[in-house]
């Protein structure tokens, strides 16, 4: 899903051969895909590793807030939809770790970076899911925001990442519709259900807008990522697209978005909107969100509790290989 690493400046490392660099840029400008065995500048490689791995970590950490409702889903059908969705997120994590591995890092190293706090994941997953409507709101708003960020990544210059994103975007679009469907069903229901939906949207609206990163004027602008066609739109452009698409969906749903400044501008054809609490955003990415510590604790616990399982699988594989070579 979640690509806040796009907001960091591209990594600048060392001096590259000017001729190779020019040929590389010419390929990018012709919209050719860069493949794993092609020459690429070290900074391009490093920027991609960081971005793809943060994206993978976000998918995996993102399984937790939704997983919070698996045992409490209110119908068998909704339970199956939720499980299948979370399973997709795990699958996205897998493709993305694999895409990152084509750049010469191992999944183990990347997971270690997450668990030791060296790597980040999307700020949105540090917010709790407090009622059943949150499951729908995560699909509608969070996956909706993710799609806005990710559709341009299907055209990313790096081949393995762009191909992973094509599949991921198809699944995310499906999740968004499922989330919306869940909310529609609740809005047709009792007053208590409608209150749950409004409550979920009130809490998740601003954190969803934060997913696009700080405003362009405050953002450490990443010229290299734009030049290399890793990133194609600015934070504010993407946020605006999301708001424009979502306002009408909110109307159809019958809920109020918690932004008193929201109004349609006839001249620009866009919805003007207020700003999220950026202090809260910076605090959340620095580890002070309500769930940051819990999310890391859960990931570390799963990893540590699984250590003996992974060791057993390796020991068994080694025994089988030894038997085979002895035969």
């Amino acid at each position, binding site marked *: 899903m979640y690509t806040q690493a796009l907001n960091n400046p591209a990594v600048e490392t060392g001096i590259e051969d000017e001729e190779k660099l020019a040929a590389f840029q010419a390929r990018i400008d012709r919209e050719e895909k860069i493949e794993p065995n092609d020459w690429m500048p070290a900074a391009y490689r490093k920027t991609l590793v960081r971005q793809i791995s943060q994206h993978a970590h976000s998918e995996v950490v993102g399984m937790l807030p*939704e997983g919070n409702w698996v*045992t*409490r889903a209110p119908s068998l059908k909704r339970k199956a939809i939720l*499980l299948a969705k979370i399973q997709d997120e795990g699958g996205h994590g897998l493709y993305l770790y694999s895409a990152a591995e084509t750049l010469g890092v191992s999944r183990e190293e990347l997971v270690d970076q997450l668990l030791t706090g060296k790597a980040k994941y999307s700020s949105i997953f540090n917010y709790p899911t407090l009622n059943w409507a949150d499951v729908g709101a995560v699909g509608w708003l969070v996956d909706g925001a993710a799609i806005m960020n990710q559709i341009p990544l299907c055209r990313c210059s790096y081949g393995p990442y762009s191909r992973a994103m094509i599949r991921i975007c198809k699944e995310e679009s499906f999740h968004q519709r499922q989330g919306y469907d869940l909310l529609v069903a609740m809005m047709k229901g009792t007053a208590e259900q409608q209150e749950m939906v409004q409550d979920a949207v009130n809490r998740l609206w601003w954190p969803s807008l934060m997913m696009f990163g700080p405003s362009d004027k405050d953002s450490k602008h990443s010229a290299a990522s734009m030049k290399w066609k890793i990133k194609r739109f600015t934070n504010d452009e993407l946020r605006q697209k999301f708001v424009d698409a979502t306002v009408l969906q909110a109307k159809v749903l019958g809920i109020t978005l918690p932004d008193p400044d929201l109004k349609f501008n006839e001249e620009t054809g866009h919805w003007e909107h207020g700003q999220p609490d950026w202090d809260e955003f910076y605090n959340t990415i620095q580890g002070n969100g309500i769930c940051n510590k819990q999310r890391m604790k859960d990931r570390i616990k799963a990893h540590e*509790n699984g250590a*003996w*399982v992974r060791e*057993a699988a390796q020991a068994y594989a080694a025994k089988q290989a030894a038997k085979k070579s002895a035969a």
Partner: protein
Amino acid sequence: MMKDPALFTYCMRLADDSAILSQRLGEWCGHASHLEEDIALTNVALDLIGHARELYTYAGQIEGKGRDEDALCFHRVEREFTNLLLVEQPNDDFAYAIMRQFLFSAFMHPFWEAMMNSKDELLAGLAAKAEKEAAYHLRHSAEWVIRLGDGTEESHNRTNDALEFLWMYTGEMFECDDVVSSLVAKEVAIDPMSIKHLWDETVNSVLARANLERPAESWMQTGGRKGEHSEHLGHILSPMQYLQRSFPQAQW
């Protein structure tokens, strides 16, 4: 008057087995040892939810009181659930979860295969689909039993503990009471003892490859089919049924 109380009871037992085991598997979601296994356990849970939905819906039609799949799953109390004691046993660790799945799937695979010949059209149709899924559940869990049993000393010990603990719950799968025998007579159900040799063959060969010793024949627990459960079931139902019970008028 219900037209076929035995068939209703039979479908409810199978549906409860699937619903409760899928609930246990769902507890792993996001918490398994590695991503591939997280996805695999969820896959098994999803298949089982599919079976539960079909069986509850059918049971509701047989009963004829207007109860749908969710009414049957979310609005009954512990004593009304008739699942096997085996499937409600907790996820003490991955070895328990895998061994529970293996002992169950080693039964369910030949069970569904035999049920493809049921005279009941819906059960035969479900069996044709479930047989393929159970074959995967069995292969997946058996491979893990072997890997863990023949992996490290720690994994061997944990898997052996799980086997010894869960063994006393396996006898219940082969019970044949009046409900089952009346349906066997109509060729709607199968006598579970007729597939005991297949279960034994699978269990013996997998345990041998895993360097695990089959526990000696001993006292077997019973009661699940009569609604007499371990203390765990209430704790499974509490979160599972909470929304339906808090808002009984709501549709989700």
